[in-house]
């Protein structure tokens, strides 16, 4: 696994999102477009090279499936961050997903936003039904012709289900497979799409006039 492979994966998703967006206009609920199965539990994130471990060793707190594969949303996020962002040792000490937003800001130089960018960590706060919160990676964003965010595409791993998934989520929509993320965590030094720590161009439809970007 190297940074190039992960960057290519992200780029494919960016391009793919542009092509796929018109059909997404028909969807209304947050949708899980890929649900991996036991035996091929990393299938939905195959583009990233993730196979259950990460260089920050967040995976030491993952669950271990019967087939020996390891799973957790935080390990997947850490894996993607390692290959797409500059090295950030603070990530090794992060706690469960519910604390990622505060710990990323306090210890890793990250910022929080309501407006996603490709490469951000999508973050869900703790709720009664998601008591440790959740994290995923924003792989693509689609826009309306007026420049508003229409949907985001995320990928994640899941410690309880022990499978990876990909989802399409709509701003403001709670119905469906999981609600829209509460915040987006932006770590310093996003490298995908050209390297050098800059942000990649964002997928877009129609004319964008600066809306929806930071």
């Amino acid at each position, binding site marked *: 696994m190297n940074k190039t492979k992960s960057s290519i994966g992200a780029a494919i998703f960016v391009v793919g999102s542009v092509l796929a967006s018109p059909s997404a206009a028909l969807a209304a609920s947050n949708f*899980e477009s890929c649900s991996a199965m036991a035996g091929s539990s990393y299938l939905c994130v195959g583009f990233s090279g993730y196979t259950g471990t990460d260089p920050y060793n967040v995976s*030491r707190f993952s669950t271990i499936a019967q087939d020996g594969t390891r799973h957790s949303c935080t390990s997947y996020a850490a894996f993607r961050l390692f290959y797409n962002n500059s090295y950030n040792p603070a990530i090794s000490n992060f*706690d469960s997903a519910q604390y990622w937003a505060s710990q990323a800001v306090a210890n890793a130089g990250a910022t929080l936003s309501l407006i996603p960018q490709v490469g951000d960590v999508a973050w869900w706060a703790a709720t009664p039904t998601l008591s*440790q919160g959740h994290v995923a990676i924003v792989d693509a964003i689609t826009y309306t012709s007026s420049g508003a965010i229409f949907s985001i595409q995320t990928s994640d791993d899941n*410690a309880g289900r022990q499978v990876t998934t990909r989802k399409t989520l709509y*701003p403001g929509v709670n119905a469906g497979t*999981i609600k829209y993320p509460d915040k987006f965590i932006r770590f310093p030094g996003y490298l995908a799409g050209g390297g050098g720590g800059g942000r990649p161009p964002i997928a877009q439809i129609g004319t964008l006039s600066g809306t929806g970007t*930071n």
Partner: protein
Amino acid sequence: MRALTAFLAALIALTSVQTDASSSSLARSIDALTNEDYPNVEVHVAPPIDQTLVERGLPWSSESLGFAQKIISSQTKSFEKEISRLASSGAETVLAVSDPQILRGKPYKDASLYVRNLHPWHLEGLNSSGKVIGRSRQFPSDTRDMGNYLVRPKSSRCSVRLSAWWNPFDWFTNGTCVTTQVSASAYLRASLATALKKATIEDSGSWLVPQIDYALASNCELTVRHDELFCDALTQIVEGQRSIKLSGKSKLGGYSISVDVAARKAIYRATTIDQRAIAKGAKVLAGDSYVSFF
């Protein structure tokens, strides 16, 4: 109707104002528990696992006990090695100095139940005139596990030579340099407590609650057979999925869902984690330097 919802959602996104927040106060406030509304499902959740009180006297696997003992011995040896090194470089007294805490904040508010002190530490060797002449590496080497903070110097100041009653310097030292005695089960208890704070497990089956709510709110025909709720509309939220399993069980907690098909309502009940099963199943995978609990 659903297309309209999506359209309205897009409008909301368009008008929402970006709020980059770098202040930790905002970050703290958004960690607070929020409520979701799934009106068709009555949800009975288990307590959050990160504040679970890990019991004493759990039936730890022999594999985990043996490995924990190895870790404790290794830490003790590392300490003794550093003491010897400082002594050979001329130190007569050794100070244990606390370093900034790494495991801190809300997740560790109950840490004192497992460890007396969560500060990493290092040793400083002092010569006969009280001057610092050497410093050790930081302990513990693995700062991420509360169990690793259990092995510490027994006192914050100790002597690396035989004490002498006539030497006033020795009056303020607390004997020879040794570490606290730690049992393997105490180590594993603290280690499991850490894992419960670091792991993100989707509360047994509670990730299914949005799906159940969706099925109940949709116009699909609902049927229950063989412990599964069938609803064709589920394919609209999960590719290829037409049913939801109504019960599940694991050492991380189980769940059961009862469905009133006629009323299109459901009750979700989660059970707490099974600490005894976790302890019995604690293992060390090849190449790992830690115990895995889940």
